């Protein structure tokens, strides 16, 4: 647990899983969850580098901003998904893009 690489591996796995989710999922909300995974992976890296890079805590601040971003993104993305659902009765991203006039 005192090894930076461990965290990097974990974050890499999380990142790839998130990526996989984003690629394969059709449901908009599921895609959003994938994105959250990716952001979390990034955050782990930030914090880990901060920890093993001299504990100057800039990483923490960065990841704080990332969380802000994630929140903003989640809010807007879900608003969009729901708007799409409202007008098209679907949450599938493919459907949404194909039904676009």
């Amino acid at each position, binding site marked *: 647990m005192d090894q930076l690489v461990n965290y990097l591996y974990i974050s890499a796995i999380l990142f790839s899983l998130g990526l996989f989710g984003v690629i394969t999922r059709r449901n908009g909300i599921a895609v959003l969850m994938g994105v959250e995974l990716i952001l979390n992976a990034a955050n782990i890296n930030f914090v880990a580098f901060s920890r093993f890079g001299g504990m100057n805590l800039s990483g923490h601040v960065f990841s704080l901003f990332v969380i802000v971003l994630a929140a903003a993104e989640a809010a807007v993305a879900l608003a969009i998904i*729901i708007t799409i*659902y*409202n007008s098209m*009765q679907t949450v599938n991203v493919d459907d949404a893009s194909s039904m676009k006039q």
Partner: protein
Amino acid sequence: MGIIHGEEMVLNIGPQHPSTHGVLRLKVRTDGEVVSDIYPVIGYLHRSFEKHCENVTYEQVIPYTDRCDYIASMNNNLGYAVTVEELMGIEVPEKVEYIRVIVSEFNRIASHLLALGTYGLDVGAFTPFLYMFRDRERILDMFEMVCGARLLYNYIWVGGVSHDLPKGFVETAYQFLDYFEPQVKEYNNLLTYNKIFVERTADVGVLPPDVAINYGVTGPNLRASGVKWDIRKDEPYSIYDKFDFDIPVGRGELGTIGDCWDRYWVRMREIEESVKILRQALKGLPKEGDVHQAIPKKIRPPKGSIYKRTESPRGDLAFYITSDGKPKPYRLKMRSPAFTSLSVLNKISRGWMLSDVIAILGSLDIVLGEIDR
């Protein structure tokens, strides 16, 4: 936004539900939290009252009228007795009239207390409910003194009452009134003017007077809409014309005329008016007199029909009696005030929220026994 189009939800409130006041079922179509349509399903307490009446004699109908509006049995008894008396042309002694007024006004207070208490419960206030029940209990004690029963009295008979008032009743009644009047103030402080309560009820479920009349709504509900219509004043029966009392009408003090708060408030005021009547009646009560004097041996009204209204705590209670000269009624129809009050529910609660529907329903003060009969 965002009302997502498509399916709406159908929700069943009742028949078993803490705030349907019995076994009413409301099929509520909601759109999110907002009610778009209400369909009251009644009949879960249809006890074949009218059929029974056709099969028992006129005296024996009285216990059944008790069980219709079981919260205000005295008033039901009175309505029935008055109707049959008019059909038969019986004059009742003055003492009986006074006793009748006394007991039915007491019962009006008891009924309103129950209505207001449960209304408090509907909007989530538990304590006022218990306070009101506590005081109602004292009225019931008095009824028990009078006729031995707590809820269903079978006290007012055609042509008289079943027992004379017991000795000590008048003093007890005065005692009670002295005790009771300050309590009303306490209810007001605890519930009526409570901001939360006002917020929950004022402006909610407004019933405009024309709609009310068209739907046949009567009683406190109609008066809350600003229509001054009280049978006790407008078509006096018994000896109500001898008393001096006001008819409270809704004034929209904290909201709009005819909202839930007004309906609540009119009832609260009516309690005060009843106290007024009671004080006069207790004063005027003749000491001597036989309460059985005018009770006919056999009740056989002449052929014919009669429709007579009386003012029960819930509104115009009317009996339509058709007699074919036999000892049993040919047909007896009860026009129950709660029935008409309930019918307006859909109209006034569309567009409000689920919690409001509960508040509106509570403010209409329905009794299922009377609706379903």
